[in-house]
């Protein structure tokens, strides 16, 4: 009986000890390139050849900023992601037309994948 009660209480105890967990991310200071771009935390669309800077902040469910945020590309031949000049700055680039994802990694864990499309430029071809 005691063993059964302990088993039932264990998950609750573990949850109470694990602390706050990831809640969401924000993008700020998003630069505006000369051709099309629509960059937010739910989807990214960028014209090929464009570079956009974003500043990324991750928040936990206690509404506190989380440390160690990274953006990574799952296909560098379509979308490039590089660390920017300042902390939490990243530069997202449209390398070639196609679809890929930008992975959001917070404190070593992948917490989100942002679907990303790289499209042709709207400018005339000539």
């Amino acid at each position, binding site marked *: 009986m005691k063993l059964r009660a302990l088993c039932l209480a264990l998950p609750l105890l573990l949850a109470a000890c694990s602390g706050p967990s990831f809640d969401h991310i924000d993008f700020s200071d998003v630069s505006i390139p000369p051709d099309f771009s629509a960059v937010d935390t739910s989807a990214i669309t960028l014209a090929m050849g464009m570079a956009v800077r974003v500043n990324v902040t991750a928040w936990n469910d206690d509404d506190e900023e989380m440390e160690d945020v990274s953006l990574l590309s799952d296909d560098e031949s379509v979308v490039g992601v*590089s660390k920017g*000049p300042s902390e939490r700055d990243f*530069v997202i680039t449209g390398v070639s037309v196609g679809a890929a994802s930008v992975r959001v990694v917070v404190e070593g864990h992948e917490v989100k994948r942002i679907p990303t499309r790289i499209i042709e430029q709207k400018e005339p071809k000539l």
Partner: protein
Amino acid sequence: MGTTNFFLPALALMALLGATGCDAMEPATKSGDLGNGRFRYVCVNGSDIACLGGEPPVSFPSVIAVGAEFGVEYLPWSKSTPTGRIEPVSPAFVTETSRGFRVMRAGTDGLLARSTEDGHVIDFTHVTFRAPAKLRFSSEDDAPARKFLKVGDEMTIYARPVSHDGEDLDGAISCAWMSSDEGVVALMLDGETPTMGLRAMAAGKATISASTSGLVSTAPTTLEITVEP
């Protein structure tokens, strides 16, 4: 009172120039989008329209010709910022060469300045490329090329690539030149530069033609020259 009104703005201007070190006036540069430095245009050789006559470019070209070569350097504002290695965003528009970059197709491409220390992007800018629709002949001072020469006259002409919208395009292009009658107008320079020296040899008419590989139209641009005795 009048003297004070004159000197205060002058002192403010001097302080501003001192603070910027006059870098803001440096020719052929444009500020990076992230504000950490400026990108400087570099002619890869004397065939760049931006550097004709051996002069450095006065401003960063607004549009560069498809098929042309060009160079870019990154100059950080702060000495503590590492130097940047330039890398194009999309190889569809620009590829790297031993001297700089070659334009592959029309459009706009980002140029990233990456830190030589850790590879992080320090800054970036975007550069626009257009296919040359035709070549425009001009003299050294950009006036239209002369169509009448006397025997013994010499003239230097330039073939400048022009877009569909009539905009002059920069970048180092290679040009193939031909004279329909070398006995009337002789070509004086070897090589495939956009600059050509002409010499009027004898009375008559000759057609000078020039073409470059990136042209939208395959027809060469021509100039008919009449040589008078």
